[in-house]
């Protein structure tokens, strides 16, 4: 190398011979320091947190919940806490746990991205497994690119929208995105495969199932889209390593902004650095450790320290921000000295504090965010002037405008729902603003009477923690009455007793309210073929209906049920009542 750089004295530091044999390292340290490196400890940490993440999603189920903090990762996500604080001016329930990440980030930098984040681990693993391994390619792929500014724009747009009351971080926040992906695609796919194997080979598998004790395989609206997103984002690692983390991740951007204050950072010793760029070989964040370290991009993965043949990199407390005035002589003629040591590196810049985003571009993103809010809110489906009739929210949900301030589309509620009734909203129901937020589809499931699990796992209070007494209007809540999700309607033209001279009333049988919200007009009837049947023609008693939808779920007119629930009459909003309140004068 030194031949290529005339004017610089030959490097006095000898490259250590990397040996795979069990013997002391070249610098005299014992062999095990090669194994118990901090990068290996980091890999263990990543595996532990990924396993914990999957475990917590696995136990998000009635028979397994047993007090586990099922939504821990979502609550620890400081962007969730920060953005909901912007939109609601409060920090709900467990969201203070965001401090567990936020404070260490202020001290250590974006360590979350490469030590904890399960999505980051998946990306890193994919890149490690499928990418070309030669040094030159790897070094080139890990150089910083201006494209990596994009995540800061995304962050700012989302935060500005949050200020206006539209919480969109969940679309791209890695924890929300990954919880949603597990809920909607990975766990049902896992179960579908197991169930298929089980029926082929007649082996019991219920203990292994992600969702045991359900008699129909779980289905999810828009699973194809959620699945496509994860395949595309994980696949992008083949072209740009850590594509999602470097380019898109709004949480990474948030932590990157915080990292400017970090007390520790990777520090390059210019008296040892030979500008070989080998530190870029494994640089996860593309943070330029070979030059001026971009603090906001660094994932603190320590690969650079590991890869540096000159031992020129350290993770240091309060390192020098720049060398100006501290170097004597000039680099050009090779006389540069730092103190008593000769400077070897030609690059004397040490750090870039904040994100590489010019001020005017911050402004652009801010304006985009300001405009995005009304653009999205114009959609009738989320607008005050007309919520969608199928946007039936889970019990305990706050009114729609507040719901959109809180819901992060993580779909934990959908994950825990025992009947599969909760579905990620499609564009047609919720517009882009409410995409993937939970809505009830009573052709798939129904809201189980004594169940409030969704309110238990909701990290942001879009579904407020609700007791069964509260949901059913019992005890202290008797005066307030039960929570109504909507109101059921009969389509007499499709109802078997009404339209087809055929007995049925499954709806009345399964109606869970006491007294039943479905009554019947009973009639002896002589059919067209002369057979006498008793027809119990059902009707609604709207004062009693809670909109649980079990009537619709069990209606035998499967494809377009003869009894169906719409959101009108829901108790979460005074704008959407159906009946005039108060006693009827008769």
């Amino acid at each position, binding site marked *: 190398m030194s031949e290529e750089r005339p004017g610089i004295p030959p490097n006095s530091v000898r490259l250590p011979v990397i040996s795979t044999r069990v013997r002391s390292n070249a610098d005299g340290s014992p062999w095990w320091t090669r194994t118990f490196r901090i990068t290996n400890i980091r890999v263990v940490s990543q595996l532990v947190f990924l396993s914990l993440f999957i475990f917590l999603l696995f136990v998000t189920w*009635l028979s397994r919940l047993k007090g586990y903090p099922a939504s821990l990762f979502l609550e620890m996500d400081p962007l969730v806490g920060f953005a909901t604080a912007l939109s609601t001016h409060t920090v709900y329930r467990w969201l203070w746990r965001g401090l567990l990440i936020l404070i260490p980030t202020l001290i250590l930098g974006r360590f979350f991205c490469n030590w904890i984040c399960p999505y980051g681990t998946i990306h890193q693993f994919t890149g490690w497994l499928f990418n070309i391994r030669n040094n030159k390619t790897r070094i080139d792929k890990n150089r910083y690119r201006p494209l990596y500014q994009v995540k800061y724009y995304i962050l700012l747009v989302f935060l500005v929208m949050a200020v206006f009351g539209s919480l969109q971080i969940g679309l791209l926040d890695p924890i929300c995105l990954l919880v949603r992906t597990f809920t909607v695609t990975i766990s049902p796919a896992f179960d579908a495969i197991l169930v298929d194997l089980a*029926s082929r080979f*007649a082996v019991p598998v219920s203990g292994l199932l992600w969702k045991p004790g359900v008699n129909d395989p779980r289905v999810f609206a828009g699973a194809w889209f959620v699945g496509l997103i994860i395949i595309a984002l994980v696949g992008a690692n083949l072209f740009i390593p850590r594509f999602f983390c470097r380019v898109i991740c709004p949480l990474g951007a948030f932590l990157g902004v915080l990292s400017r204050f970090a007390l520790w950072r990777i520090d390059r010793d210019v008296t040892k650095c030979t500008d070989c760029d080998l530190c870029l070989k494994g640089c996860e964040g593309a943070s330029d450790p070979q030059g001026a370290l971009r603090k906001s991009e660094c994932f603190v993965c320590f690969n650079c320290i590991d890869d540096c043949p000159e031992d020129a990199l350290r993770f240091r407390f309060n390192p020098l921000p720049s060398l100006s005035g501290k170097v004597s002589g000039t680099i050009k003629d090779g006389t540069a000295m730092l103190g008593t040591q000769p400077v070897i590196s030609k690059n004397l810049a040490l750090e870039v504090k904040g994100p590489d985003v010019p001020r005017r571009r911050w402004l652009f993103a801010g304006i985009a965010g300001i405009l995005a809010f009304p653009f999205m809110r114009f959609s009738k489906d989320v607008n005050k002037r007309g919520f969608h009739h199928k946007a039936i929210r889970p019990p305990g949900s706050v009114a729609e405008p507040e719901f959109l301030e809180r819901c992060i589309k993580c779909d934990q509620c959908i994950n825990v729902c025992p009947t599969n009734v909760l579905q990620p909203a499609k564009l047609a129901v919720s517009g882009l603003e409410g995409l993937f937020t939970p809505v009830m589809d009573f052709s798939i499931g129904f809201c189980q009477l004594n169940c409030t699990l969704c309110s238990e796992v909701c990290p942001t209070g879009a579904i407020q923690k609700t007791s069964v007494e509260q949901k059913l209007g019992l005890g202290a809540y008797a005066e307030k009455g039960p929570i109504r999700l909507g109101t059921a309607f009969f389509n007499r033209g499709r109802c078997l007793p009404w339209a087809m001279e055929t007995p049925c009333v499954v709806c009345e049988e399964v109606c869970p309210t006491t007294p039943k919200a479905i009554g019947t007009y009973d009639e002896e009837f002589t059919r067209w073929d002369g057979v006498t049947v008793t027809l119990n023609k059902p009707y609604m008693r709207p004062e009693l209906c809670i909109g649980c939808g079990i009537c619709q779920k069990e209606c035998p007119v499967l494809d377009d049920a003869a009894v169906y629930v719409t959101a009108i009459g829901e108790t979460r909003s005074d704008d959407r009542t159906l009946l005039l309140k108060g006693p009827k004068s008769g």
Partner: protein
Amino acid sequence: MNDDRRRLIKQLGAVAGLSLGASYLTLAPPSWPLSLRDPDGERGKPRGKSLRLPENGFAVEPSDLLPHLGVARGDNVDAMLRAAVTAIGGVTRFIRNGDVVLIKPNVAFERSAPLGATSSPEVVSALVRLCREAGAAEVRVADNPIESPEACFLRSGVKKSAVEAGADVYLPSAADFKILETPGASLISRWPFFFRPFMGVTKVIGVAPVKDHNLCRASMTTKNWYGLLGGRRNQFHQDIHGIIADLALMMRPTLVVLDGTRVLYRSGPTGGSLSDVKAGRTLVASTDSLAADAFGWDELLERKGEPLPAYFAKAAQRGLGVPEWKTLRVKEEQVG
């Protein structure tokens, strides 16, 4: 030159092999091995495997001497169950050493036990213990509820009581259903059946609460078999009496226990209010579910004098039981 020839031969071989292989698979007559040929579309249709229950079901030998109905009244469920079963021959008549017993409670709804919509957990656990003591190698408890299975088993308390008494609880999953053939059934001669818990089973015991029912008037031990079926059960209401008569044909149990400790006498089958429930303080054991249910209709639902629901006559016509329980040998006992 040699290399070129070798390459040519290889390529020719590949072309010939693939063409011949593809031609064989598509053109060979269906009976030939590996043939894929399906000239009329028949071979490509799905062939569902179906299963059948044993010829005489799980019933034990009938007796000419023993009572048909064992009725026990009281408050101590354990003692009542023993008395009721002893009255009709004792547990050894039904359970032998090494039997694998399936107990079918009614856990259709997510209701706590006092609301009377489900089999009471105390009766289920007493039954499990009784089978265990009689030497059953394995006792299973299974039902396919209408509401979420886990929640139903949890809320009703049946899961806990069954597991603590030493039974395995089987919750349905999508892999657990196969078509069951019931020859002679008019409506459900082929219907998806919750077969998994039945694998290797030698004895079947039904234990059902006494419930009012909006459509069929009364849901007891005969209608209880509804919970062994899957598929489009919501069509059953179109001929509920025909269905219940078919259920009686489908399942010939070893024993049924009518759980009259509580009676859901109105707002059935879901109930939901304690005011819909009254204390029945009665257990009935029988091999004849129609007789047990008719007893429940008269004595527990207290609808004596009202005509029995139509399914009784339909099932009795097939020789599946005797609804006129007063003509049978009945042994009633007060316990404790």
